[in-house]
């Protein structure tokens, strides 16, 4: 078995879904002949034809709305929004329609669609190409928001998202699209949605993160291990609905929690996790919960982006703070 990158795993999951289910269609801007600007859809049009893998005109609202209509007719649309920064004109469709149709019609019309979008900074991209605004969708009832952080989870979670009977916003951390390779069997096995993945077992502090920041979070855990501090490391993976049970269980064991995300701090998903810890896990805490996040600024253009995104050093400092308090 060859090792593959995260973006190759995304491609492999779509190829598998297209092969397994004739209702699956993949479309978006430049996804066909060009194979997607990140090559996530490379070769799919050639293999499955241009009726099931389509290049669309440049119209985010219409292609998102179109996915809703397709899903209502029983197709399983998987659409790509080229960058998360271009998703905003589709938000009306996502929130007012995709997320609500099942509820509005009491289950008569459902929307099993997946909207994929690369997100996050760190690749020296042009303006509007580096934001992390996942919390916006995490706030909206009726949606699932899923973020993989490894090739294996990209494959298993995307398959799960495509098979899910409800709309899923699937955000792909593009900074780690090609950062690591991993053996991923193309076995068609989906991973569970709505649950966190425990990546390390430890007893001193719980580190919670998702997406590209898992990389720095794991680096911090490794360095802390060398100093004799053991970390529980949790990849949230599905940020909506949020599996607080796993996080609370971990914090009950460690008594300390550091939440790491690239998105701006205010009303970020970290705030939701911290609030839940305060509501349901306060008595287990030895120290205040720490958040290591992007600042409440506009995502800076790329000369400064590394100053915005949480670094391993910032995570280590936050962990240190939780250890000092007790």
């Amino acid at each position, binding site marked *: 078995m060859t090792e593959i990158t995260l973006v190759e795993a995304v491609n492999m999951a779509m190829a598998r879904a297209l092969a397994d289910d004739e209702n699956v269609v993949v479309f978006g801007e430049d996804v066909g002949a060009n194979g997607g600007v990140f090559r996530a859809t490379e070769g799919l049009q050639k293999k499955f034809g241009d009726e099931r893998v389509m290049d669309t005109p440049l*119209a985010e609202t*219409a292609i998102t*709305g179109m996915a809703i209509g397709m899903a209502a007719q029983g197709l399983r649309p998987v659409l790509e929004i080229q960058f998360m920064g271009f998703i905003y004109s589709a938000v009306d469709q996502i929130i007012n329609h995709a997320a609500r149709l*099942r509820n509005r019609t009491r289950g008569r019309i459902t929307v099993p669609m997946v909207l994929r979008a690369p997100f996050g900074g760190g690749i020296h991209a042009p303006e509007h190409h580096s934001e992390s605004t996942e919390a916006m969708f995490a706030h909206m009832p009726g949606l699932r928001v899923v973020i993989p952080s490894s090739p294996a989870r990209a494959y298993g979670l995307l398959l799960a998202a495509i098979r899910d009977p409800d709309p899923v916003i699937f955000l792909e951390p593009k900074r780690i699209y090609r950062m690591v390779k991993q053996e991923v069997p193309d076995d068609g096995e989906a991973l569970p949605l709505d649950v966190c993945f425990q990546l390390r077992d430890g007893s001193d502090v719980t580190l919670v993160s998702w997406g590209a920041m898992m990389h720095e979070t794991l680096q911090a855990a490794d360095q802390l291990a060398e100093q004799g501090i053991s970390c529980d490391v949790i990849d949230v993976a599905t940020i909506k609905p949020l599996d607080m049970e796993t996080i609370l269980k971990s914090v009950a064991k460690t008594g300390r929690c550091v939440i790491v995300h690239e998105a701006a701090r205010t009303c970020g998903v970290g705030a939701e996790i911290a609030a839940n810890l305060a509501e349901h896990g306060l008595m287990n805490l030895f120290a205040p919960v720490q958040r290591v996040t992007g600042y409440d600024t506009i995502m800076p253009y790329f000369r400064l982006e590394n100053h915005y995104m949480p670094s391993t050093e910032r995570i280590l400092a936050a962990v240190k703070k939780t250890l000092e308090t007790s």
Partner: protein
Amino acid sequence: MANSKQTSVASFEVFYSQVLNPQGELVAPLPYFACDTDELIALYKNMVLTRSFDTKAIALQRTGKMGTYASSLGQEAVAAAIGHAMKPEDVLLPVYREYGAMFQRGVAMHELFLYWGGDERGMCYANQPQDFPIAVPIASQVPHAVGIAYAMKLRKEARVAVVVIGDGATSKGDFYEGINLAGAWNLPVVFITINNYWAISLPREKQTAAETICQKSIAAGIPGEQVDGNDVIGARNRISKAIEKARQGGGPSVIEPITYRMFDHTTADDASRYRDPEEVEKHKQLDPIMRMRKYLESINLWNEQDEQQLNDECSAKIESEVKIYLDTPPQPPESMFDHLYAELPKAYKAQRDELLNQEDTNND
């Protein structure tokens, strides 16, 4: 540049059609479908039933028995035409004044009362599995129709998506993006842009500098035409033609039926703040029901006795549907969790319990 050579590379014409004039006289040969006199009577009955429903709905709102309601007064012909032009296997995506079309397609009156009475079950449509519910956000249903049409084409089905929007909605990007995609992919979809002169308080002439609404189709490379939207025979004919063309693989079209919103935008609106009552009076003379009745009477298909009988039937039907509506108790509060997802995620079960506990406390 002043002396540059210019060549005409594109030009367009927009056609307007009418069969029945406001006096109920034929101004064009009867279309083929109208040979079926039962069909003509069915169209008329649909319009009368819709108007009776509308009168009742406004009364229910005014007496506090229903919420805000959008009236279809004056626009009955377009809805009847759409409902009769479509086949059962087609999919309708209405706005909120196409009640006649919805009745024709199996939506029950009490479901519409429930909808405007604040109950999601009013969009459940026990006898209409595929049509989309009423669309409130304006024009956003256009891309849905494009996706539905794509699914139909992909599966090589002889079906058509019919989406309705108003004149104001054609100013929105969703409309332009939708017609453009439908044209680029030659999809089986018909866009019906009902021009009723008013988008709440904004008159048609302030909505766009375009001389007609339907000519917006030209930019998408698809045909567009106007039809007298108060002429149920003409409207039924042109809408059928567009639907059947799409069904045969001939691609999408835009139809602009011209009608008039006789009532306020909704029961929460007061059109006297922005609309000249003389204009409303003028449009009363163009009424779709009056002219069809005159025509049917002129060819001895209808008389006073038929009219009385129809009115009695409509009243009885509406009273029984109102009773179903008023006798329907609200959904239990926890039902707000029932259709959020196929299965309620574990993460939200505690909130459902919280609501149930609160209800228990309230009932103690």
